[in-house]
């Protein structure tokens, strides 16, 4: 059985990975166009407040090494379920920005129901720009069955 309190003590809030992201115009424009968002702030580079679409940051840093520390204990077999994703927008992200994504596990908790105990892991990446301003937080919730 997984020791959830030990997992929390060992891993919650610990930064375990960093990744850099250069914000370029072409993918920023393609993102807005693909989603059909015609708001000129995100679709027109000549707009005075032109910026990356606020949801664009949710596509950055979705790698295995950004999700889980290498040393994180094996939780056993069984399928993980995507529990959802949130994007918190704290400041505009501009073309030309150099972002630093800093990964941590924001929370670990369990819920027990008829089908047994489900472990919830909240993977978080905080994004900072080249001025070290915190511009966004992206949380991805993973749900995994860990026993009855």
């Amino acid at each position, binding site marked *: 059985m997984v020791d959830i309190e030990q997992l929390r003590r060992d891993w919650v809030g610990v930064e375990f990975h960093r990744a850099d992201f250069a914000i370029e115009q072409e993918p920023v424009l393609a993102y807005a166009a693909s*989603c*059909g*968002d015609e708001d000129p702030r995100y679709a027109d580079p000549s707009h005075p407040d032109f910026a990356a*679409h606020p949801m664009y940051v949710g596509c950055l840093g979705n790698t295995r090494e950004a999700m889980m520390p290498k040393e994180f204990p094996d939780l056993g077999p069984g399928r993980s379920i995507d529990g959802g994703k949130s994007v918190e*927008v704290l400041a505009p992200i501009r073309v030309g920005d150099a972002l630093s994504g800093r990964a941590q596990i924001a929370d670990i908790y369990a819920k027990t129901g008829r089908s047994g105990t489900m472990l919830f892991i909240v993977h978080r990446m905080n994004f900072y720009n080249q001025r070290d301003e915190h511009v966004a937080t992206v949380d991805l919730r993973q749900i995994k069955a860990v026993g009855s």
Partner: protein
Amino acid sequence: MRFADVELGDDLPETHPDISMEKVRLFVKAAGMNFPRFTDHEFARNEGLPGAIVPGVMSQGFLAAMIHQWAPGAKIHKLDTVFRSTMVVDTSATCRGAVTDLDDEQHLVEIDLTMLGADGVTAVIGTATVELSD
């Protein structure tokens, strides 16, 4: 749309986002998610899926676009989604939203969001916190 124009329970005009292969290919290239389960129907069927599927995270862009269309100039502070079922590329989809709370001091609006697939099944649920102008 200004904050003063919004009332609790208001529905946002629904949108019908384009989930064609052309748009999904554009999205996955922009997002760095160029996996064949999103862009190749045959590959996806061989994986047991009903066809190439729309990336779950793309729904966040569609829902944000609906909000921006409803309230040009709105600032999305937070958008939280749960992906409940898949949507097949080259079918149809519908985005809906309803105002569930208002913060008079900060001019923030809470919106419940849903995205339905072609079969009418709810594919995505979510909430957004949005700042509107005076």
